[in-house]
């Protein structure tokens, strides 16, 4: 009943707003030629032939205006402006919002598909249900993505007409495939969503698979546009000397030489990889936030259990995807460096170096939050106290790595501090500000987080494997040798040349990845059919854990906003780096403070819209699996909240 009332209200509101829009539009159009005094003049003109001098003046002026308008030649605008906020911020916010929703829309099918697949293999209905729960978030988000995409396109065309035109000049052949793919995505998405339970499982899985393929393809095309702006050319070993050369896709005057080079440009692949991984992490965290939101609303134990589990899975997806993200980030950064020393230094040592200290704070918070959630999760199990004693050490490791990662190479310091240090870097701490230390820190962070997960996994379970002691020891040895290797390379890095040191990152990463794989491989048989010392009580989580999930989602979103800024801001005053100069008043690079303000506002808008998406998603489709009572309970609460 409540819902009906709301829907009715929305209908009325929509009707009223249509009328208001039409009226307002008419008023604005008419008003341009109908200022009151002029109207009077015109009316009087009809009646009387004699005009007062004032009236005559008005008529003359009007005629002059018209003549001037006719005489004015048509000019192509280069830029247009938006009052108060300016063109850049407008496009910035629109692009960011479009991207956030798009990332979500691309990511959710990815893991919905995987979860559904797992459910199909395991023949467990609860996975299927979970996948559907995730998919429910999709359709509204899809519309949001499309809406903001349209906003963004209009924004670009209106505010940056000349530059948009230039991009069209380069990329016009890609637009048609893009639109067609978009159409296909809509088709697959809706058939996947509405076809749930109506198609056979294999057909349905195929739809999900195609949805992912098409979605990824769309992203790849769009990535070409934006990476072209950063690196308008392809990497290729033209002269065959083993050193990659830069093949420019455009001439010095900006004319297109090769669409292929423009499309498969220098940073295209790194961005693709980075974005897929980041999207999954982001999507998982948002889905977990949704679960947390529903968990907090839930009244019954079943509902709680369900959403607790969903939050857990979402967070699990987010963290698993998050672990390799720093490496994808390094790859991207390295490619940017390789493309242009100027851009590279700009990024790591220049204007943006402080941005990476903020980034360190965000990532540290993310790791801390993720671990925290896992530790709280031990409370779900009977006998979870057993592993609590490890938390202290994990926490110390994480905090240490966090601190190392947040150590700036050159600290903000007062004049006397600089004098005492003999420069802007501290004799001891500056070691922590270098790449070796930071690589080590992030690897240890990853290991620690995985350790938390392992502990969580075995809380309340007792292995029944015949060689359990041996296997557990093997795990410990693998774990500690990976950690030792990482630390060894980190320390040894200070004793060798930079050229060699840089290569140390690779064995560090590999030893961590290998450790993760080996430990997992051992862990699977070790805890197969493990004896439960107590039951896992889904839904038995303190509320603070759910807020932690939302905090994680928020940090992720903010981080994405920040990284989006640095990627785009790197170009500084260039539209297309080295080719098309931005000559608008917004060409300067704003302060970090301002950028973070814009990011914050964007994030707040996004979460506001997300609230709407969550609410809409929770409206429909419950009766399929949930008992009536639960659905009613949920509705009552949501209705109450909305009212």
């Amino acid at each position, binding site marked *: 009943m409540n819902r009906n009332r709301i829907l009715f209200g929305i209908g009325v509101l929509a009707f009223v707003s249509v009328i208001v829009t039409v009226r307002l539009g008419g008023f604005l159009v008419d008003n341009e030629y109908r200022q009151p005094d002029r109207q009077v003049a015109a009316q009087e003109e009809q009646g009387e032939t004699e005009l007062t001098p004032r009236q005559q003046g008005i008529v003359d002026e009007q005629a002059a205006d018209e003549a001037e308008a006719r005489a004015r030649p048509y000019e192509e605008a280069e830029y247009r402006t938006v009052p108060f906020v300016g063109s850049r911020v407008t496009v910035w916010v629109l692009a960011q919002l479009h991207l956030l929703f798009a990332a979500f829309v691309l990511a959710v099918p990815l893991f919905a598909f995987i979860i559904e697949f797992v459910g199909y293999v395991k023949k467990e209905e609860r996975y299927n249900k979970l996948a559907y729960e995730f998919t429910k978030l999709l359709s509204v988000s899809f519309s949001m993505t499309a809406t903001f995409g349209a906003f963004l396109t209009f924004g670009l065309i209106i505010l940056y007409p000349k530059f948009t035109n230039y991009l069209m000049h380069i990329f016009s052949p890609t637009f048609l495939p893009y639109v067609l793919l978009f159409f296909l995505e809509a088709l697959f998405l809706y058939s996947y969503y509405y076809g749930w339970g109506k198609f056979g499982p294999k057909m349905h899985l195929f739809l999900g698979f195609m949805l992912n393929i098409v979605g990824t393809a769309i992203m790849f095309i769009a990535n070409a546009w934006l990476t072209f702006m950063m690196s308008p050319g392809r990497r290729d070993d033209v002269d065959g000397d083993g050193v990659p050369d830069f093949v420019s896709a455009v001439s010095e005057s900006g004319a297109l030489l090769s669409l292929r080079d423009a499309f498969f440009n220098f940073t295209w692949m790194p961005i693709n990889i980075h974005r897929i991984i980041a999207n999954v992490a982001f999507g998982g965290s948002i889905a977990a936030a949704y679960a947390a939101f529903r968990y*907090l609303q839930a009244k019954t134990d079943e509902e709680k259990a369900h959403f607790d589990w969903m939050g857990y899975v979402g967070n699990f997806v987010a963290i698993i995807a998050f672990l390799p993200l720093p490496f994808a980030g390094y790859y991207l950064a390295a490619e940017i460096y390789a493309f242009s020393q100027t851009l590279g230094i700009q990024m790591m040592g220049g204007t943006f170096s402080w941005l990476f200290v903020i980034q360190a704070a965000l990532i540290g918070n993310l790791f801390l939050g993720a671990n925290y959630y896992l530790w709280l999760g031990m409370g779900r199990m009977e006998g979870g106290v057993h592993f609590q004693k490890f938390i202290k050490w994990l926490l110390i490791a994480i905090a240490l790595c966090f601190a190392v990662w947040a150590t700036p190479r050159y600290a903000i310091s007062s*004049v*006397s501090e600089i*004098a*005492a240090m*003999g420069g802007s870097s501290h004799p001891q701490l500056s070691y922590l500000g270098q790449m070796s230390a930071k690589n080590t820190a992030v690897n240890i962070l990853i290991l620690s987080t995985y350790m938390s997960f392992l502990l969580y996994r075995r809380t309340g379970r007792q292995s029944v494997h015949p060689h359990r002691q041996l296997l557990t020891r093997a795990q410990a040895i693998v774990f500690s040798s990976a950690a030792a290797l990482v630390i060894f390379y980190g320390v040894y890095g200070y004793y060798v040349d930079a050229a060699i040191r840089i290569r140390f990152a690779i064995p560090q990463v590999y030893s961590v990845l290998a450790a993760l794989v080996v430990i997992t491989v051992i862990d699977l048989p070790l805890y197969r059919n493990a004896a439960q010392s107590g039951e896992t009580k889904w839904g*038995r*989580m*303190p*509320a*603070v854990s759910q*807020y932690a999930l939302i905090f994680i989602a928020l940090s992720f979103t903010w981080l994405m906003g920040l990284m989006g800024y640095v990627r785009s801001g790197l170009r500084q005053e260039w539209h297309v780096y080295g080719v098309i100069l931005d000559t608008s008043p917004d060409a300067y690079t704003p302060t970090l403070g301002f950028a973070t303000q814009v990011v914050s506002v964007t994030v707040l808008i996004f979460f506001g819209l997300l609230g709407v998406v969550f609410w809409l998603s929770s409206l429909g489709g419950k009766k399929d699996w949930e008992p009536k009572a639960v659905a009613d309970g949920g509705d009552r609460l949501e209705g109450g909240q909305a009212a």
Partner: protein
Amino acid sequence: MTAQTRLRRQVAATFAVATVLLPLSASAQVDLGTEEQRAAGKVVYDKYCGQCHGDTGDGNGYATPRVKPKPRDFTTGTYKFRTTPNGMLPTDDDLRRVIEIGAPYTSMPGWPNLTSTEIQNVIYYIKSFSPDFENPDRYAEPIDIPRPLESTEESIARGRVVYEEQGCGACHGEAGRGDGASAPTLVNDKGDPIRAADLTQRWTYRGGPTKEDIYRTFSTGLNGTPMPSYADSLEVEDRQHLVNYVYSLGDADDPNYGTLITAVYSEEPLDLQDEEALDALFESAPMTRFPLVGQITEPGRNFFPPVTSIEAQAVYNRDEIAFRVRWHDLRADTSGRNNPSLEVPMWDEDNGIGGDATDAAGDSDDFFGDFGGEEAPAEDDFFGDSGDDFFGDGGDDFFGAADAGAGGAEFSDAVALQFPASLAPEETPELKPYFLYGDAQNPVDLWFVNLTYGVADTFRGRGSDSIEATEADIVEAVTSYDQGAWTVTYKRRRSSRAGVSFAEEQYTPVAFSVWDGFNRERGNKRALSSWFYVYTEPSAEQTVAGPVLRAALIVLAIELLVVFLVRRRARQQAAGEETAGTLTATEAPAV
């Protein structure tokens, strides 16, 4: 400063080692090391030492023409800093000490990163340059350095008597500022001009700042310089008193360089003619010492500025602001000309440059083409390979004993304060003009005093090659020279139309330049500082009570809130338990 502290510790440690170990080691023994050790020493020497001391140890490396004092010529076997009697060879530990900590305010740095073995090897290699080290007769036992006496007033007074009796002031000056009557004429045994130490600035002592260092210097003399040994003429005790006196001349081991002049507010009028009132005013203003270094960025490169620091303070009243600066100079040169826009050659070459000069000149020929004007004849001489420098008196040095003899230098002493012509906009407070006389976009104003005339002229600098006299602001100045110390006091109205205004609570960039006419400093050849700041302290008395009280109240309020919440919850819980209600999982933890 930590570097200084460390230095002092090392000196002390070295001496501890020296005093304990030396008597045991038979120092008269000739120890020239093995072939391998010398070869290993050569590797280190060639990498770190040869560029100044010459690859053949003759003190003639790449850097030699431009540094002062000159790098040691190892072929002579003459060493300044020793624990052995005058004229004798140093011990290995003496050499080691100098290698480890260097000689402050010279181009000899310390080499803390060399290992003990490396240093020993280098010592063996250095010894191989001079045949003296093969002669056992040139070796002597190190002298005994007693524990310093306590610095009582009597001891210092006695030391002063010794100082006067021994005529230390003839070189070091009455007040110890290195301004003795004969200071301008001092040369070492190679004929290179050298300066008597400024005893009031202990941190610049080449041989080290401790009492032991000072005692050692009296007792062993500095070989090759006019500084004799007093081992024979003075009793040990008198030398110890003298140490105390010399030590009392300076008030700090560290220069304690600052970054800020705090201008204090005063209601009093600032009358430059009323000396006493002025002194009283400045009495209340904190004094800050700023480091000065040679201008080596632009032509007129000054590789060895004798003035290494300047002290400054400021006071202001409602309308005016006054600055006082003070620095030490071995002689008041008040007969020549000087101003910031005087043209100077790329650099004044020292003596002994020989063929190298042509090389350097060849590289920079095109640059010199731009120069002309008053110094033109000088250039000709300078680039001729005749070896004559342009002072024409045949003297090898430009410190110019001849100049001194003639009673005045060609260029006068001078000083300048430098301010930006306008303050940076609020959004970019870090923006400043280029610290070397500004640039075209951001000019600077110079308050220049040529000490020959003792009045302030204002110049506007738009870069080193574009300095013009202006009369936009009226700056007054009074000057005085007292026993080696120049004092210049400036005054200007606080507000200015053309230049910078000194508003209250404002940080105004300031930089300093000092010209020592005796060192032929003029134009862009000068000692200068980077940008520092003048802070005009608020005139009203500042109170800390408000913020302190606020902090306390905020914390108290939070505390009370917590106490209130906890108590209230406990009450509710108690009430809840009575009605048998328990908290559900979601409510349990407080968020």
